[in-house]
Structures are given as structure tokens and as C-alpha cells.
């Protein structure tokens, strides 16, 4: 008999999968990203659109938007970061548990955008480490979804086990 089955066959392999711990941990992490919508301006509207039915961010396992930093692991900075708000962004970032990632959504969060002004921080990467930058003013939901898929790719390549043992001292301010 010719088997059409591809991949895992429990009868043949005895309910055992051989893999690396990194792969398993990263596989789990990247399919359950819990975003923290740091909505600061109009980008937040597009962020809401990407969560709604037409674009449906839950196809990628990240529909669980949490408004508490303690329940989330990916901060989506959506909007203009003023110098007054930068402090708050950093404090919220520090309250998120490890591992955590940051997406700078849109021109303002990435570079200050059109606000070449005394009041606006020229890129949120001045206060938090950014993993993915999204261009656009505001970016379309597809662009955000693409960024989140890129973030998944980045999570998939992390050395998660080594990071656990080499964990740096926390430098939080919260």
C-alpha cells in the first residue's frame, strides 16, 4: 500500500517528535503574540481596522489585544510620541513581562514623521528598543499585518534558550 501521508505519522514514529527547544519555544511564542495597543494618534484607527473582520489579525494568532502591559508581550506604538508621552511609553514598556517586542507603527512612531517640532520625539526608538518599523502615514492594515508577520519571523529565529540563561539585569524604571 502506498501511503499518501506526509509529515508526522504517530504509528511509525511512536508519538515522539525530535526537535530543538528553540524551535518549540519560538513556534509557541510566535503564534500567540498578545499585542498592547499603544494608540497615540490616527495610526490607532488603522490598528483597530486590522483587528476587525475585514483584515482580521486573528488569522495570525494575535487578536488578543490587552490594554494592560502585564498581560501583553508586543507593544504596537501607533501614533505620534510627544516628549511628554515618551516617559509613559517607557514606563509601560518596562511593566511588560519578558519576552517582549516593540513595533513602531507609522512615520511618527518611527521617525517623528511630519512633526519636526519642539514637542515631538523624533522616533520612539529613543526610549524603547524597536523590533519592526512600519512606514506609512498611517500605514494600511495590510502593512501592519506584514510587519507582524516579519515580527513572527524574527521571533522564530531567536535563541530563546540561550536568552533564558544569559538574561541581562533588568534596567527598568517603572
Amino acid at each position: 500500500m502506498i501511503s499518501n501521508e506526509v509529515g508526522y505519522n504517530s504509528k511509525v514514529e511512536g508519538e515522539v517528535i525530535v526537535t530543538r527547544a528553540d524551535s518549540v519555544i519560538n513556534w509557541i511564542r510566535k503564534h500567540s503574540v498578545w499585542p498592547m495597543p499603544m494608540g497615540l494618534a490616527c495610526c490607532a484607527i488603522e490598528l483597530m481596522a486590522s483587528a476587525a473582520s475585514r483584515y482580521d489579525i486573528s488569522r495570525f494568532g494575535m487578536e488578543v489585544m490587552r490594554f494592560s502591559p502585564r498581560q501583553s508581550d508586543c507593544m504596537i506604538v501607533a501614533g505620534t510620541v510627544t516628549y511628554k508621552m515618551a516617559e509613559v511609553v517607557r514606563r509601560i514598556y518596562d511593566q511588560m513581562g519578558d519576552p517582549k517586542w516593540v513595533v513602531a507603527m507609522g512615520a511618527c512612531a518611527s521617525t517623528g514623521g511630519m512633526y519636526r517640532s519642539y514637542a515631538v520625539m523624533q522616533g520612539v526608538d529613543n526610549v524603547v528598543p524597536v523590533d519592526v518599523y512600519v512606514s506609512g502615514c498611517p500605514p494600511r492594515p495590510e502593512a501592519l499585518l506584514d510587519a507582524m508577520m516579519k515580527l513572527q519571523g524574527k521571533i522564530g529565529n531567536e535563541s530563546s534558550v540561550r536568552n533564558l540563561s544569559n538574561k541581562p539585569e533588568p534596567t527598568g524604571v517603572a
Partner: protein
Amino acid sequence: MIDDDFVKSLLNGRDYLSFKHHEDCLTINCLPESLVDFTKHLRDEETFDLLVDLTAVDHGDGAEKRFSVVLHFYSLVHKSYLRIHVLCPDNEAPCIPSVSSVFPAANWHERETFDMFGINFLDHPNLKRILMWDDYPYFPLRKEFPLAGIEVPLPAADVAEVTGADVDPAPMMGGPFVASGNSRMSEAEPRAKDESWTEKSEKPL
């Protein structure tokens, strides 16, 4: 009906007022010490009971009186606007009385005007900055303040220490995007002035 008779009756017996010609709406100069009484009169007797806007103008360093505060009122009976124009007496520490006891809507407007121009509103219940953080040392809408800003420390010292960030002047590459100001606004299309300064060409002092 807002006509010459109305203006005449408004100015009659009030030597602290004077007429100021403007194309768009009736404008009255008022001395600061009588501002509160006059706004109360406008609200209670003349039906100008809606404070639409309160802001200030910086006439520049050369002006005899540098700052003036401008109040816009609307009357739902007359269906017309009225503007009060108050020159601040002191150029160094400009101050005028607060009208927030008459119009509660003025409270936040006056805080914003204080924040941006540094005009003190006497007897204001809570005169502190509303947009910038409390210990910000400058008044951003004054003429001498550059659009890009001035370097100061970040509001939170502990965040600044961890991140090494501070408040930097914004790069002006390709901007600011403004009208030239030499001709009529309808003809002068706004253009980028390109006050650029980069790693190669330093920012002019």
C-alpha cells in the same frame, strides 16, 4: 442687530473701550483692568454669552506692547461674533485678569495661552501648563522660540538616565512647510523652505 448704533451704545460711557477696525467682525479694544466687568456686561446684557476662543498674539520684540490677548464671543441672538483685543501692559512679565470667573470655558484656554506665550492670568484658579510638561523652561509660541525646539532634559530624570534620551531640536530637513509671507496668502502657495542641516552641512548658529 450689530450696526453703528450698537457700537456707539456699547462704547458710550465706557472710556476703557475703543473701536478697532477689522474687516471680519466687530472688534473692541479693552483696557485689562476693566476686562472682567466688560465680559460680564457682554454676557448678561448684550447676549454675547458664548466664549468661542481665547488666545494671544506676540507682536515681536520691537513692538511697544509686545503681547495682546484676543477673546472671541458669539451671540446666538445677534448671530454675530465680537472680538475683544487686550494689550498686555508689561512686555517682560505680561499679565491680564482672568475671565474664567465669568466664562468657565476660559479656564483651559487661559492655561494654554499661559503655556504657549507665558501670559499670566491673574486670579486664575489653576494656572499651570496644559500641553507642555510642568517644568518646561520656554514658551514655544513666542517669536524668538525656534520651531525645531531647544535642547532640554527629558521630563522624567529616571527614564532619561536609562535611555540616554533628551529633548533635542528637531531636524529641519526639507522644511518648514510655510507660505512665504511676502504676498497675499491666496497667491503665495506654501512651500518647503528647506532649512536643512545634516551631518554634512551643520546647523547655522
